């Protein structure tokens, strides 16, 4: 077979969204690759400029359908930095707990999609089953299941519902009991090892030079986690390990995410235990000052950054969103070259693509 270009996308099961990966194959070997994005561009940053600070909140939920709370929280945190607000201690702990619940839900959705990509539908359904519990928790918190709009500038919408602490601990207990079941499905499967080990190798240098962040970077043996290196909210008072892996391949990314879910369980327990009593929200001004501010969080997919410039009105002059996957997708070519067509799904699946935040 001669060399030919294959369009994987924009409508393709591998893409998990709406983007196009053009790969040039020689037989089954990939000799060139070109990610094309922009199919889901909604002009988010322009919309932000025309809305008041309060109105922007619900829109930021729509940035990522996999982990919407992280982005909502990032926005609120950035605007709080802009307005120089100090939010109540309890609100910070509630946010940390909610972020970690969201992180587990997001990682579970990742493992579900990854397993389905590799043809293992059992893993898909098991992960979706357990994700339901965490989605239920977030639903109890916020009332909705996908776009929570739970964080507010100056705190969170509402305090925990009755018995929420107990439900959280129960969910975490259940999930920690179920983790070995999930892992046994992958770790003890020879074919899963064959499909992931040594596939999609992204060396430490390449990962750092390309600006890759998040679990993908940590799987390339770089210990970088915003929660640890630049603690926001109350992460500096919580004891957890940054997970990294030395394999630099799909297997490493899988392991990092699995371990991160365990760490998230630990964080949820600590946040619930250390949570003080008190108010969850403070009164905030409607008008932002004429200066700029930045917020950095550790999204489940990487480093999410928002940069806001205020001009003394109730609307931001500019709100820039730095999405982790926009950057990680640029590493698609170095990750793909030399592997087989069948590896595309494993490699692109392993970086946990979410087009909502990529195209904004």
């Amino acid at each position, binding site marked *: 077979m001669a060399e030919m270009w294959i369009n994987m996308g924009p409508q393709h*099961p591998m893409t998990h969204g709406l983007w196009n990966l053009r790969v040039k194959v020689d037989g089954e070997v990939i000799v060139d690759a070109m990610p094309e994005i922009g199919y889901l561009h909604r002009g988010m940053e322009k919309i932000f400029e025309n809305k008041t600070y309060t109105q922007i909140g619900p829109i930021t939920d729509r940035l990522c359908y996999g982990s919407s709370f992280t982005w909502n929280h990032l926005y609120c945190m950035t605007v709080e930095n802009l307005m120089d607000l100090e939010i109540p201690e309890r609100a910070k702990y509630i946010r940390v707990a909610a972020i970690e619940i969201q992180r587990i839900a997001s990682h579970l959705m990742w493992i579900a999609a990854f397993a*389905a990509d590799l*043809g*293992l539908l059992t893993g898909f*359904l098991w992960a979706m089953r357990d994700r339901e519990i965490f989605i239920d928790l977030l639903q109890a918190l916020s009332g909705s299941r996908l776009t929570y709009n739970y964080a507010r500038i100056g705190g969170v919408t509402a305090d925990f519902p009755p018995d929420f602490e107990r439900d959280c601990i129960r969910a975490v207990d259940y999930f920690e009991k179920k983790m070995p079941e999930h892992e046994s499905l992958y770790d003890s499967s020879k074919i*899963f090892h064959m499909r992931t080990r040594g596939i999609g190798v992204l060396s430490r240098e390449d990962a750092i030079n390309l600006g890759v962040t998040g679990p993908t970077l940590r799987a390339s043996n770089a210990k970088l986690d915003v929660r640890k290196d630049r603690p926001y909210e109350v992460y500096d008072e919580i004891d957890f390990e940054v997970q990294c892996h030395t394999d630099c391949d799909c297997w490493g990314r899988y392991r990092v995410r699995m371990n991160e879910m365990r760490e998230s369980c630990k964080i949820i327990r600590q946040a619930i235990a250390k949570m003080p009593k008190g108010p969850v929200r403070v009164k905030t001004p409607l008008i932002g000052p004429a200066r700029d501010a930045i917020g950095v969080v550790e999204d489940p997919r990487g480093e999410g950054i928002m940069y806001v410039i205020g001009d003394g009105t109730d609307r931001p002059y500019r709100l820039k969103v730095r999405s982790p996957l926009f950057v990680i997708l640029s590493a698609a070519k170095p990750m793909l070259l030399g592997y087989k067509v069948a590896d595309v*799904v494993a490699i692109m699946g392993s970086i946990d693509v979410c087009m909502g935040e990529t195209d904004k």
Partner: protein
Amino acid sequence: MDIVNFIFSGILGLIPDPVGSFFEGIGSWSVSAGVVNFITMLLEALIIIIVALLNVIILIWIERKILARIMDSRGPFYVGPIGFFQNIADGAKLFVKQIIIPRKVDKFGYQIAPLIFVGSSFLILSVIPLSPGFAVTDSNGLTIPGGILFAFAVFAIAPFSILVAGWSENNKYTLIGGMRSAAQMMSYEIPMLLTVASVFLLVGSFEFSDVVSAQQNIWFGIPLFLGLIVFIACMIAEVERIPFDLPEAEAELVEGWTTEYCGMRFGFFMFTEYMRGYAGCGIATLLFLGGWLGPDFIPDEIWFLIKAYIVFLVFIFIRGALPRIRTDQILDLGWKRLLPLAVLNLLIAVAIKAAGWI
């Protein structure tokens, strides 16, 4: 099929003859050996297809239910008792769909490939006996000579039709799917035929009935356990199920070589795949698990089907537990793992035969 022969010669011979020699001529022509044989053949084909249809419907239902339990869900349960008629509903849906033929396909290949695929798969069933009394024979009661060889020869036609289909569809995914099918065939056919050769060696015959009657004392699956494992692994590759369903990998190739087929054609492909699964399970049962042999309180045919379904359950468990393998890895697996094991199995068979244990 002596009974059919008898019934038909009886019915056609009894046509009343009020007018005279014309009908007498028709009457005697209609009971002549050629016509009766032809009608018998048609009836046999009909019986084979009906048995295959029933089995496939049951197998798909079993797969849906068991796989759903593995995946911690319920499976179909709305249509019919415990969802048994869901397959029929799905088939009806596919049946009423419009059949779209893309403009740029190669029409001849595009239309001939499903015929080869479906036809060759039905042909396999013509040599698989469910019991000594339930087999296709000629008028002397003899089965097709070399039935096992015939079954495997016909089994191997399907990858060819997949290649033709993938190529003629004028689509890159289907082309890769077709090529994968051909590459996959290289890897599993040889170990599979070597394990079958070990059975030939023990029996000394190419007939299914001889193979089964040679297992009166012990099923070949027990001394040739290695062979059974290799055979089942190769059979999963042969019928293209997970983990060896590369030609139609839905994640990377969008259902691979079946991408451009729609409506009932696609339905026929899916159906035929399960039928090939049934045929594969049947062959494994006959060669290694004693075929229809079993205590007398259950009829022979039911024994055969029970064993075939149990082999199919193994297929389902494997599908529930494993991800899909890669093309180069299946070649690796076929040539570096399964082939040595198959040769080892052949040596074991030689040793058993030489020692005269069977």
